[in-house]
């Protein structure tokens, strides 16, 4: 959404015109015939004009504070969702004493993104059943049709030719049977060799038990897959003995094996150990539970949204979910209910007995690497047979208050879809990268070569508007003074203000001229001698939200992690800025951080981009290419459009 470029914070123009119209109506009536005639026609004229102007009335201007029921105090003791047996779907960071900020319409409207998928209004969470079929990419998603908080969950639906320009379609799966009346929760699609599509999803029954249900397209020849049929004898899987009725959800895409059966997995838990159950089927109606798990990791708690797929160690193309053989490793991923974090591990799948072990037990699922070190959850991948790549979706929740979400009328985004590849250079990481189709949004660009940034300085980058950007940057380091400094402060520190010898340095996004609001995205290097002459360097990649907004009622954390940097590599990053979301990728996508920012001043024309170097002992030379990005014009499918 293009912002209204008025940084004085005026109430949008439309509201002023509304007042004018009302004034006309309040003029006193004079009961002389001819004056009445003129008056009548004038009012008629004005209302005709008003009717034509307001054809495209944006619903934001109707935003009012809605306090539903007794929700003057919106700080629920138990976060939404937990009582129903899913992970917390509301932010519990706010205490009862956090003052709520006076958000203006301008600030709230600005938060809406230009090219990230989000429905027109209301709440969204997990991405569901992504697939490519007959020329269209499909995205389904957990959706509340009634409000901007979690609840009443149905499957929203949207299609796109290119994973970027989405068109909204009617809801695909609603809660209308006993086996999903309390929620049509997450699930996955399996594409059968004959072209049929099978959808498995979790239903929350009228008795509050989590079950798995089968659905399929009503009309296989409909390219838009508008209508879906639920199998009459659902559910097809119910919690097995020993598994709790609220610990059984989110079935994966199935894969076909040498036993001529389809295998799939879904997450569960036993005694605080997260695990993945294995089911086999030949017809997607009857299932057998394996007696051993795909994998189990103690202490990780319930596994939601399990994802399991092969990657080529050659690292050049994505693989169909059923692929296997030499040169293939398998990724197991889980969303941890307890911490709301997505973890993955790379390992080996033993198809003979359907078990999997990680390459490195210290980096097992739930204790090792994360797909994204920021605000990110419930991710799901699919094999895109159109372009032979594995594509990953992830849900980005809001970090502001529930009251603000209700006021602005919406909550949550999806990431830009990312390709996933095995990083053959390190052998330990996956590489995530925004799909190339996002480049179709690129407009004008600015290039900067080897800009020198000295310690303790900030360099403005004059690129025009700074709220919709694709930034690619490389950094070179110049040691100042004598070598041999050992600086073993690791990690992200308390943020970009914490200076050390070799960092932090990077960019300041969504920052204003006065730097009273800013979001640093940075590297921090540290080296440690270990008593001998060898010094090892480690690099951390971080995003610091602590000064992203003056408002007290938003979450402002420092996110980050170490990122492997090989000897022959420069430090590189890519950042997608899209209003209230920033997606940051380091070293070609080895480490990714998604963050939400809710500035009060650095909005519209006041937002800027800077380079900064807060290190003490190095100069930075930065080379950047920065594109303005167009809106993706995500809108309803033009069924009745005659244009």
């Amino acid at each position, binding site marked *: 959404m293009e912002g209204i470029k008025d940084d004085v914070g005026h109430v949008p123009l439309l509201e002023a015109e509304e007042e004018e119209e009302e004034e006309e109506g309040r003029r006193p009536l004079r009961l002389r015939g*001819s004056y009445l*005639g*003129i008056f009548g*026609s004038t009012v008629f*004229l004005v209302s*005709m004009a008003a009717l034509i102007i307001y*054809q495209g009335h944006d619903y934001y201007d109707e935003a009012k504070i809605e306090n539903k029921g007794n929700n003057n105090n919106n700080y629920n003791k138990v976060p939404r969702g937990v009582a129903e047996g899913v992970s917390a779907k509301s932010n519990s960071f706010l205490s009862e004493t956090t003052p709520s900020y006076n958000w203006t319409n301008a600030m709230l409207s600005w938060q809406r993104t230009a090219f990230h998928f989000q429905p027109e209004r209301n709440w969204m969470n997990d991405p569901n059943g992504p697939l490519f079929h007959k*020329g269209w990419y499909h995205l389904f998603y957990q959706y509340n049709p009634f409000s901007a908080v979690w609840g009443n969950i149905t499957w929203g639906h949207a299609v796109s*030719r290119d994973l970027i320009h989405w068109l909204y379609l009617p809801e695909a799966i609603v809660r209308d049977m006993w086996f999903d009346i309390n929620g049509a929760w997450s699930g996955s699609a399996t594409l059968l060799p004959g072209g049929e599509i099978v959808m498995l999803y979790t239903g929350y029954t009228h008795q509050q038990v989590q079950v798995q249900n089968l659905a399929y397209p009503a009309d296989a020849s409909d390219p838009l897959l508008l209508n879906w049929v639920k199998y009459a004898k659902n559910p097809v899987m119910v919690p097995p003995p020993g598994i709790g009725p609220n610990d059984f959800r989110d079935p994966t895409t199935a894969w076909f094996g040498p036993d001529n059966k389809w295998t799939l997995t879904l997450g569960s838990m036993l005694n605080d150990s997260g695990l993945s159950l294995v089911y086999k089927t030949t017809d997607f109606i009857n299932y057998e539970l394996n007696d051993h798990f795909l994998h189990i990791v103690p202490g990780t708690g319930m596994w939601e949204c399990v994802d399991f797929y092969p990657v080529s160690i050659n690292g050049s193309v994505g693989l169909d979910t059923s692929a296997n053989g030499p040169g293939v490793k398998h990724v197991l991923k889980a969303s941890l209910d307890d911490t709301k974090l997505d973890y993955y591990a790379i390992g080996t799948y033993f198809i003979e007995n359907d078990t999997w072990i990680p390459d490195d037990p210290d980096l097992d699922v739930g204790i090792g690497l994360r797909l994204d070190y920021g605000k990110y959850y419930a991710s799901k991948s699919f094999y895109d047979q159109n372009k032979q790549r594995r594509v990953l979706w992830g849900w980005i929740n809001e970090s502001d208050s529930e009251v603000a979400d209700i006021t602005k009328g919406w909550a949550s985004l999806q990431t830009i879809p990312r390709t996933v590849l095995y990083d053959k250079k390190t052998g330990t990481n996956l590489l995530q990268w925004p799909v190339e189709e996002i480049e179709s949004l690129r407009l004008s660009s600015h290039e900067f070569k080897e800009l020198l940034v000295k310690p303790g300085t900030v360099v403005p980058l004059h690129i025009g508007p700074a709220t919709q950007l694709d930034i690619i940057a490389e950094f070179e380091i110049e040691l100042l003074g004598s070598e041999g400094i050992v600086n073993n402060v690791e990690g992200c520190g308390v943020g970009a203000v914490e200076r050390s010898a070799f960092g932090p340095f990077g960019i300041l996004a969504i920052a204003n001229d006065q730097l009273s609001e800013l979001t640093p995205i940075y590297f921090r290097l540290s080296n440690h001698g270990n008593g001998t002459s060898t010094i090892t360097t480690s690099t951390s990649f971080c995003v610091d939200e602590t000064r992203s907004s003056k408002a007290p009622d938003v979450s402002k954390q420092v996110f980050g992690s170490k990122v492997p940097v090989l000897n022959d590599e420069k430090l590189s990053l890519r950042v997608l800025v899209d209003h209230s979301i920033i997606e940051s990728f380091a070293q070609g996508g080895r480490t990714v951080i998604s963050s939400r920012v809710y500035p009060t001043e650095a909005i519209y024309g006041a937002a800027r981009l800077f380079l900064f170097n807060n290190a003490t002992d190095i100069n930075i030379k930065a080379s950047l290419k920065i594109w303005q990005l167009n809106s993706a014009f995500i809108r309803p499918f033009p069924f009745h459009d*005659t244009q």
Partner: protein
Amino acid sequence: MAKTLHITFTITIILLFSSSSIPCTQSQTTREYYYWNENNGVEDLIDQVCKRTPFYDLCISTLHNNPLLSPKSDIKQVALIMVNNILSNATDTLNYIEALLKHTKDPQLEQALALCAESYIPVVRFTLPQAAVAISQGHFAFASYCISDAVKEVNSCEGRLVKSPSDKSPLGDRNDVVQKLVDVANAIIKLLLKA
């Protein structure tokens, strides 16, 4: 005084009603009722339809003497024929692009052609066939969307191959013909939407 005011009032109302007929959508001519004399048959139908497309001659030459058209044909059948015609043209163009790709030694041209192929492949595999099915099922809005999509993809291909007015396209006028045919089909489907 009162008389003047009455006249002003009347004129205002008249102006109001005439301005309210300013259409919110495109051309007013599309609201005309289509009719042709069944005795004149096919040629009259073709003429009436092609007159409302941006490339009259191309439209006529595509439909003229087409064995699939009969005096009982309607605009829907005309649209179907046009879409299937584009599909065969686009398929030929795609084949030609792929043949060129195999033989070219110029890396820049190779890249441009490869991207062109990427534009044409979904058009040939999905977009145009789906448009044809949609027309026969009466889903004209979806067909219109598909055709507009095809327009975009074909334009995108042309844009890669011809960067300046003096450039000659390696595809000759194949791309250009497909572009024009798609514009014609677009116009015909819009007739269906407005009918």
